[in-house]
């Protein structure tokens, strides 16, 4: 099966009309692959899919959930967390409050990683954590904070790398027990985030394309990692504009390991490693 540009156009237009989701500025190639995957999984042709979307708003919602990608993990890309630990977060050490927005939080691992790191830096009390995603299913998963243990066993390596070790000083070793933050049940194969972490963040459904800033606040730190790769150049710039507008001066924007700001908004940020600091 091949999804043509017209097919994609048809699909995106339908979704926009029916479900108010605007995928028109998403990356064509990625969206095509996701659409193809959905069609294959549901064993439908495009016509059938469109008909179902039109008839059933729940179905449309599910399709949106299917199409979005929710890859995340605890302390994903440890170098970024090192950067946060050594060069970004210390900037806010003297703030009274630290507002953090995880835009596209997926299943919440990044949110809890951030909170663990903040806690280790004694900054959690000051922090206000906001987390948003387009997909309500992953938001529910985020709120629960229960993950598969075996499948995500690499989490603990990342935890060790970020929390226990310091790449700038190999002799440093913080023996933080996992039990401080997780309940690991090998029988049930679950790793559960402790309650004091899960009850703190504010999780909301949010569409970066349409919704602007949901919260009546500006942010010291915005994390939007591995999200803009699914957007085209124009939408990326819109999102950068949104972030820029809602960052405090000297506020930080953190993108994914391989994401960079190019174009008009690049010179409105100063780059510290992977982090962009609003000028």
């Amino acid at each position, binding site marked *: 099966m091949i999804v043509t540009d017209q097919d994609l156009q048809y699909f995106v237009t339908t979704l926009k009309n029916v479900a108010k989701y605007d995928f028109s500025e998403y*990356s064509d190639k990625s969206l095509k692959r996701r659409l193809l995957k959905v069609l294959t999984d549901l064993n439908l042709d495009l016509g059938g899919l469109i008909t179902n979307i039109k008839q059933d708003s729940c179905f449309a919602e599910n399709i949106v959930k299917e199409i979005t*990608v929710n*890859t995340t993990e605890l302390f994903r890309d440890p170098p970024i967390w090192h950067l946060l630990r050594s060069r970004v977060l210390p900037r806010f050490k003297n703030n009274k409050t630290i507002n953090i927005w995880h835009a596209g939080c997926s299943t919440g691992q990044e949110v809890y990683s951030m909170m663990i790191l903040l806690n280790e830096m004694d900054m959690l009390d000051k922090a206000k954590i906001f987390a948003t995603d387009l997909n309500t299913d992953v938001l529910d998963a985020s709120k629960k904070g229960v993950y*598969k243990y075996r*499948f995500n066993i690499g989490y603990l390596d990342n935890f060790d790398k970020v929390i226990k070790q310091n790449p700038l000083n190999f002799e440093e070793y913080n023996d933080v027990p996992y039990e401080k933050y997780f309940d690991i049940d090998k029988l049930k194969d679950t790793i559960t985030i402790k309650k004091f972490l899960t009850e703190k963040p504010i999780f909301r459904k949010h569409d970066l394309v349409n919704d602007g800033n949901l919260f009546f606040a500006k942010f010291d730190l915005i994390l939007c990692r591995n999200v803009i*790769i699914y957007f085209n150049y124009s939408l990326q710039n819109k999102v950068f504009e949104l972030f820029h507008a809602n960052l405090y001066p000297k506020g930080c924007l953190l993108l994914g390991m391989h994401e960079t700001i190019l174009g008009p908004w690049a010179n409105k940020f100063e780059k510290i*490693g992977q982090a962009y600091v609003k000028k």
Partner: protein
Amino acid sequence: MKYTQNLNLNKQILLFTIPIVVILYAASGFSVYHLAKKRVLLSAQKEMEVYLGKMSETIQLVENQTGLGFNNSDYLVLKPFFNQNAFYKTDFPFILDNSGQYILHAYKEGQRIPSSLLQQLKTSHSKQGFISYTDYKDGNKLDMLFSYKYIDSYGTYLGISVNKSEILESLSQNKLVLIFVVLFASLVFYLTITIILKPVIQLLKEITESVKKLSKGDSPNKIDFNQNNEIGQIVESINDLIDNLKHKADFANEIGKNNLDANFKVIGDQDILGTSLLNMRQSLKLANTEEGKRKKEDDLRNWSTAGIAMFGDILRQNNNNLAKLADNVIQNLVNYLDANQGGLFIYNDEDPEYKHLELLSAFAYNRKKFFEKRIAIGEGLVGTCAVEKETIHLKEIPADYIRITSGLGEAVPTSLLIVPLKLEEAIFGAIEIASFSDFKDSEIEFVEKIGISISSTLSSVKNNIRTNQLLEQSQQQREEMAAQEEEMRQNMEEMQATQEEMARKSLEMEGMSASINEALLYCELNEDGSIINPNNNIAALMSCTRQELEGESLTEFIHSDEKGMFKGTWADVLSGSTFKSTMHWVDKNSNELYILASISPAFDEFGSIFKIYFLGQDVTESKKLEIRAHKQAEEIEQSLLEIQVEQELNLQREDEMKALLLVLDHTCLITELDPAGVITYINNKNTEVLGGDKDEIEGKLISELDFVAKNRPKEFKKFWENLSKGLKQDREFSLNIDGNEVTISEVYTPIINEHGQVTKIINIGFDISEIKRKEKEMAALIAELETLRKKK
């Protein structure tokens, strides 16, 4: 005969014997009579012979006297002799000639004898004899006996004929006597027989009745008869028989009443019935004991079978819930056995290091007690039972039983039964039952049997549970696999998207670097400041080749004034900050150059510098211009100060203007038009004087409303053209409003911007009918206004 057969014996005897006796008597009487008759007749014949002899002698004598033959003399002499009858009244002797004619007879002389007699006489050929004949005389039939003797001398027959009845007359008297004797004898016989037979027959009747009853199976009374004769013996025998039968019947009754020990003796060796009865009793006794045994066995078997069926039901009902099953089983088992306590242990080998028996359900004193108890294999009685796989039955339980790990708590029962739950040598658990009474072998056997059923159910339940677990596990694994697959796919998607994004970025970067290469001065720098990889632009600027430039130190080119300052800048760059400023260079030809440069370090992921980029733009020209402009700026600044003063003045004037305009607004008709002729503003005075609605007029074209435009279009066209060219236009017109002639003088003033374009047209009209004389003054005022606006 048949009839007689049905008569009773008495009557039969009478019926047969009396006629026989009568006939016998009659026969003997008749024969006596007959013999007598014969004798009488014989004696009569003899007498007749004798008589005829005498007569013949007489005749002889006469003959002798008279001469030959019968002659008269004979007749006369003999006549008197023949007139006399001989013995009876009618027996007269006679003489017959050969023709049978009586020649001498007392009264029948001349008559003839019956011809039949004559016939017989002639055929007899004897000279003497007897002939019996029948004489039919006077219609009477007379039996006659004729005796004759032939007399040779005469040649005639001397005869005498006697009527037999006369001869037999004496006999008829005897006949009556005889009949009487016969009758009497018969009567005597009848009486005798009756007297003798009656009691015997009565007895026979009784005997018959008894035997009849006996034959019908009844038990008759004894017959009372005490004579020691044949009948007496029969009666005795019958009485004995009745007695015996009664006795045996009683005995049989007793047996029937199941009194097998009733007293009974056989009469003798030949008492078949008695022996049979005894044998029967023996057999019954034997059968009874057998029956008793069998019944016991049956009861046990029934108990066991019912129990097994019941437990079968229980086991079937709850075979998906192990705990409930165990509860039901142990509760029912304890109740069924009338025991007091019970526990069901299940074998748990999930943890191979600690195989143990787990108390799944306990039942004690009709109340369930739940307590998790685990007994290791081989530990205590229950553990031992599981190891040995043999039933343990303890009848003596030590007082400190509680100390023995039995798992049943504190009561000390008197009997303890532990049965392993096994199926083909595989152990599934154990049942422990305690009771205050001993367990029978059958009960133990029963529990063992139930144990097998329970084992088999446990086995299947375990299998079911295991299967379900496996099923769930595989389901879960499948779901996990699916989840993992989806996650992998998402990861893939993200990688792909990232790669695409990076490809796009790198394309962009390439374009950028290409354009940089084209437009800017570009090189990279080592940490010591030496140039690497310069582009053509920078080489051209420096009037040398790229190769010549490679390796040169950047500081070489910096103007001596700035060299000292650059050292500090370089140190900053090396510590990570970006330098951005205009540099003053001197090329090899000593030309001064101004370069707008940025020097920025690039860090690797560990934060250490791996490259320093130099980007620059030749701003020499603009720098020179800038210097020039700087001077101009100073001048401008000067004039700005002046302007400021002027502006303050303007502000003052503006205030004045505002006041003036207010006055104007109250006195003049003001209309504002845009260059296209649309009325953008009209003041209240205007509508006051000329009428119309402010809201309606605003936004309309003047050409639609204007009096001149409607009536003299050519003139209006000219008028508008002039205005559009920026020429001020005056005009006057009169209108009749509400009967009053109103003369309006209008001045249209186009407002022109710095580019010479008309941006606005202001019309100020005066009601010159009242203030015409002020017209000139106003015009002057407008002229002044215009100059003010221009200045502003």
